[in-house]
């Protein structure tokens, strides 16, 4: 540093102190100039430091001069030299301490200065910092230039990888009482991320051993996978584990010590469809295949309603590769409440099975008790289906398993011949809605109703049957070859006389007959809410090309085909006052939280016959079951109406028949219709509707008390014994112990018990009581002792003593007209 500069520096410092003194004296005069000069000098100062060290020295001196000049201008005549004394500094200090308004005017304390040398070093430091920033900026630029594309892809790929789908829960299918027939349960797939486990050697052992202990996965299998595909991120080891199954592992993983090195295992959530009753109502419910696609039945028909919408955990990328921020939770599917009743369904299936097991392999070796057996239980006043069952059935939880019906060899053969799928399809077919058959004599009810309603027959006609009738050159036989003799309209129905019906057909005429048949929805889909209902439009006669013989055989239900649901719905309209209800299973759509989203009310489509016709038909049909062909179907203690059917299948004269019975109870006020069809029973002598009637009788016997329809007829000794066997009536000793309530609770419960062969106490889901299956009594859940219903404090029990008394009273005092 040169002497000159040092002088400058000193000079400036002295100036400063002296100026402060002057400031006090000349402030007023010099203020404006001071401000201006301040601006100028600070500007210069800034420029100086920005431009670095080379010319700093010169500038500084120049500036010194400038400010000196300014000072001189402002302070005019005061000579600099005079102020170069130390005294001045002392004076300054004194004035300051005396409260002058110059707060930070002068250095204090240390008195040291920030020297030029230090300023230079500061400038060096600034340049170093600048260089560092420059270097970092270059680095930023380099990252952007070199790896931009690569990193951009990385970001996007990460995004997609982590944008996890949140599965929705498919809705439940419930029966009328709220029992879950189908529901979805959250399950977990065990996924191994080999790249994470392999990232550190210390992860491998703890993870493999944890998998082994918690899931029993073979350690070698995992090791092999880790070795063979070390970078693999997604390997599903186990599927559909329940929460209980994975919770030991989760706890182990949470453990600070042991779980620290368990890495690379995660659980993918999904839902699994469960059918708690296995094969119950399998054809009606249907099942779901992968990704909640409904197959068959309600599952297929209501698939869209049952399904929800998947959610996503993070955002997702839109078309511009931008992130959509909305995190959407999964929307669970809605529940479908049906009119099905699991208990009725169970009873129905019990009797179907009973029949088929009884006749298994009886005539046709190695075959089931029938080709098909189908039963529909309906409420004729609403068209709601209470039960719908078909045989053979299958387990909904395992619909592809046919080992119950076929041996391993047979299955292997099927796979070879590529008929395995066809077999499955056949098994999954819902006989009640998908198979058409000639209805046989059950259709006579429709013919007579049409005749009566159209006024073509009055009901007081008599017909002569000598066993056959010649129609257009064809000799058409009655089922009784030596003839029924003289029959009224009612008698024709009671005896199911074909000849009489053919005469009536002549009276009705082709057009009217076909008009009514169409009104009964024969040939049209019923639009029941099940997937796959068969189309039968081309299975009935075309009215224009129909000849007299066609009409003749049509009157007793041959020559055209119906599905079970068509005939059952039509029959309902005949007996319920003439109203044709659309057959329906769903009664309500529920939101996932159980609140009602939509109520499905019964739909009357039309009035097919008049109320009077319907009333007349009920009398006729009742007579069928009192004196006619349908007596076998009558359950003990009830009056029912119904019609039997026996139809020969194509090709004719093979001894192959479809036997059926359709009936309703009670006879005067139909509450329930039961339609049973047995397709080619496995017996030597097929054409007897008694096969169907026996099934129907069993069903009636059990469901009528369950539905709180009371006995009206007197029971014979034998019938009482029979009912006791079924535990619908209590045994005598029990009767003396307890009357009333126990019966009501016990009866169908015990039926279920027998079926499921559960040894111990059971829980009655209707009433919430605990029942001893051997006696049907309610049991105290705490003490496991029988409860005296009169003093019961356990809970509400369905049925009241008065109801039961009434039932028994009417039963004894009723009309013994069986």
């Amino acid at each position, binding site marked *: 540093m040169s002497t000159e500069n040092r002088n400058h520096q000193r000079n400036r410092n002295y100036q400063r102190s002296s100026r402060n003194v002057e400031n006090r004296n000349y402030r007023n005069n010099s203020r404006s100039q001071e401000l201006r*000069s301040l601006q100028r000098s600070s500007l210069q100062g800034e420029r100086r430091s920005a431009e670095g060290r080379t010319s700093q020295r010169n500038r500084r001196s120049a500036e010194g001069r400038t400010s000196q000049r300014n000072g001189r201008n402002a302070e005019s005549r005061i000579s600099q030299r005079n102020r170069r004394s130390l005294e001045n500094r002392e004076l300054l200090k004194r004035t300051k301490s005396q409260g002058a308004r110059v707060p930070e*005017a002068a250095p204090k304390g240390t008195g040291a200065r920030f020297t030029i040398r230090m300023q230079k070093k500061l400038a060096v430091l600034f340049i170093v910092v600048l260089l560092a920033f420059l270097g970092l900026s270059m680095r930023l630029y380099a990252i952007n230039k070199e790896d931009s594309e690569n990193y951009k892809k990385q970001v996007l790929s990460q995004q997609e990888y982590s944008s996890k789908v949140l599965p929705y829960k498919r809705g439940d299918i419930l029966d009328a009482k709220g029992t879950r027939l189908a529901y979805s349960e959250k399950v977990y797939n065990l996924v191994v991320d080999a790249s994470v486990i392999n990232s550190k050697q210390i992860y491998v052992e703890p993870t493999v051993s944890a998998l082994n202990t918690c899931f029993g996965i073979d350690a070698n299998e995992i090791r092999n996978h880790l070795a063979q595909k070390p970078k693999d991120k997604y390997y599903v080891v186990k599927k559909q584990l329940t929460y209980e199954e994975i919770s030991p592992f989760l706890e182990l993983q949470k453990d600070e010590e042991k779980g620290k090195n368990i890495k690379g295992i995660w659980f993918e959530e999904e839902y699994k469809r469960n059918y708690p009753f296995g094969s119950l109502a399998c054809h009606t419910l249907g099942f779901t295949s992968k990704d909640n696609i409904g197959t068959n039945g309600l599952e297929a028909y209501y698939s869209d309603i049952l399904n929800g919408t998947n959610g996503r955990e993070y955002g997702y990328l839109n078309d511009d590769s931008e*992130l959509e921020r909305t995190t959407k939770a999964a929307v669970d599917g809605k529940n479908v409440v049906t009119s099905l009743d699991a208990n009725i369904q169970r009873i129905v299936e019990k009797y179907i099975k009973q029949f088929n097991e009884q006749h298994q392999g009886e005539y046709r070796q190695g075959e089931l008790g029938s080709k098909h057996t189908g039963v529909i239980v309906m409420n004729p006043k609403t068209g709601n289906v209470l039960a719908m069952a078909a045989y053979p059935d299958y387990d909904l939880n395992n619909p592809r398993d046919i080992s119950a019906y076929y041996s391993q060899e047979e299955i292997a053969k099927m796979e070879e011949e590529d008929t395995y799928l066809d077999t499955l399809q056949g098994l999954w077919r819902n006989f009640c809605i998908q198979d058409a058959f000639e209805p046989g004599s059950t259709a006579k009810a429709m013919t007579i109703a049409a005749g009566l309603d159209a006024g073509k027959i009055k009901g007081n006609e008599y017909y002569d049957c000598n066993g056959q009738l010649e129609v257009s050159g064809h000799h058409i036989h009655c089922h009784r070859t030596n003839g029924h003799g003289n029959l009224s309209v009612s008698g024709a129905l009671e005896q199911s006389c074909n000849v009489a019906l053919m005469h009536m057909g002549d009276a009705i005429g082709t057009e009217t007959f076909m008009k009514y048949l169409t009104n009964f929805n024969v040939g049209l889909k019923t639009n029941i809410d099940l997937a796959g209902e068969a189309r039968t439009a081309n299975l009935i006669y075309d009215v224009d090309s129909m000849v007299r013989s066609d009409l003749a055989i049509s009157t007793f239900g041959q020559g055209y085909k119906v599905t079970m649901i068509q005939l059952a719905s039509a029959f309902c309209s005949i007996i319920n006052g003439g109203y044709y209800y659309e057959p329906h299973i769903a009664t309500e759509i529920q939101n996932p939280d159980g609140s009602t989203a939509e109520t499905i009310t019964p739909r009357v489509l039309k009035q097919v016959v008049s109320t009077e016709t319907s009333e007349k038909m009920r009398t006729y049909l009742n007579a069928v079951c009192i004196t006619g062909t349908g007596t076998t179907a009558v359950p003990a203690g009830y009056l029912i109406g119904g019609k039997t059917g026996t139809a020969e299948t194509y090709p004719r004269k093979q001894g192959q028949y479809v036997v059926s019975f359709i009936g309703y109870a009670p006879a005067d006020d139909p509450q329930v219709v039961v339609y049973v069809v047995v397709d080619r029973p496995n017996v030597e002598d097929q054409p007897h509707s008694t096969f169907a009637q026996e099934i129907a009788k069993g069903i009636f016997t059990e469901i009528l008390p369950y539905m709180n329809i009371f006995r009206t007829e007197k029971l014979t000794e034998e019938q009482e014994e029979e009912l006791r066997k079924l535990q619908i009536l209590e045994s005598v000793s029990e009767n003396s112990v307890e009357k009333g309530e126990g019966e009501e609770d016990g009866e169908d419960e015990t039926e279920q018990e027998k079926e499921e062969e559960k040894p111990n106490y059971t829980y009655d889901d209707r009433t919430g009581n605990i029942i001893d299956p051997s006696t049907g009594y309610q049991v105290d859940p705490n003490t496991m002792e029988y409860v005296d219903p009169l003093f019961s404090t356990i809970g509400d029990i369905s049925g009241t003593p008065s109801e039961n008394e009434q039932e028994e009273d009417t039963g004894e005092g009723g009309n013994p007209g069986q």
Partner: protein
Amino acid sequence: MAVRRKNRKQQEYFFDYTLLFIVLFLLGFGLVMLYSTSSYEAALDYGNSAYYLKKQLISTALGIVCMLIVSRINYHFWERFAVIGYIAAVVLILMVLSPLGHEVKGARRWLRLGPLSLQPAEIAKLAMILFLAVLVCKMGKGIRTWKGFILAVGAAAPICLLIWKVTNNLSSAIIVAGIAVLMVFVAAPDYKRFVLMAVGVCAAAALIVFIIVKNAEGQAEAAADGGIQSDAGFRGDRIIAWLDPEKYASDEGFQTLQALYAIGSGNLFGKGLGRSMQKLGFLPEAQNDMIFSIICEELGLFGALSIILLFILLIWRFMVIANNASDLFGALLVVGVLGHIAIQVILNIAVVTNTIPNTGISLPFISYGGTSVLFLLAEIGLVLSVSKGIRLNDVG
């Protein structure tokens, strides 16, 4: 008379508005970025997307008040607190070990005082600046000798060691040491010893890295042979991850790599404010040490360079104030603050760009951190106070 009074006021209470506005702009920008960066995680973790923003706003408001108060106090007022501050810093750091200590994410670095939690390392930085400024002034020409140099640098050593060992916070220790070295560098006339020191530090760092890498290779071989797995320590892991982040993408290198992805995917102008994808759970501590990478992602190279430019402006203002400070004490205070901010900004950006191994250093005024912003603003208050001195001295 009234007019005169007013004029006088203008003259006496000069404020370096350039500095103030740069700081305020950085704060405002920081808050915007903090909200953008943290809202997603905050909403996930706390159910309130403004959780971090709210906390930072409170600290910032407190800090601004603090800054304004400090700027109005003559900085010489603090001189007498130099030693007390130094001792207080030591005590506070030691108190982390007491029950008042508070652990966050496995690091015991905080003190909890009622609802406030505070990081003693931040206080230590300010205390160190004040203490060294006073020390150097007291030494006068003594700083030119080796003895004085060692004394000045040595004064920082205890605090650095405490921060490193007690709070296990190497990065803060490095910053405190860096501040001390820079202040002495400016105060002492010599270059040679600093160059020597820089070379020495670089050589030592290179040696450590070399040893760790060798060690890791040996371990990898041992592990491959099925031998014992030993722990290299998390700093060792970080250095290995620094050299090859892709290889350790799943653990140590994860954060660095995610930061690089963020920077790389930003391009020139970025994806737009608020449109970062990396902040959505990919980049850990995005609102904290890694906020710069999100700035790069959302605002691109342009935004990043703008921020760097702002910091350069800030540092330049510091230099102007230091150069024109009325005395050495004031100048040294400003140099200390300059050093503090410069070191943190450089190290932070260096970490984010994987130029140096990953260590937790926040970006001044922008990163989330209450104590940090509070004390930074107090430091700015000091600088403003020093700047007031210049004006009257320069007045012609």
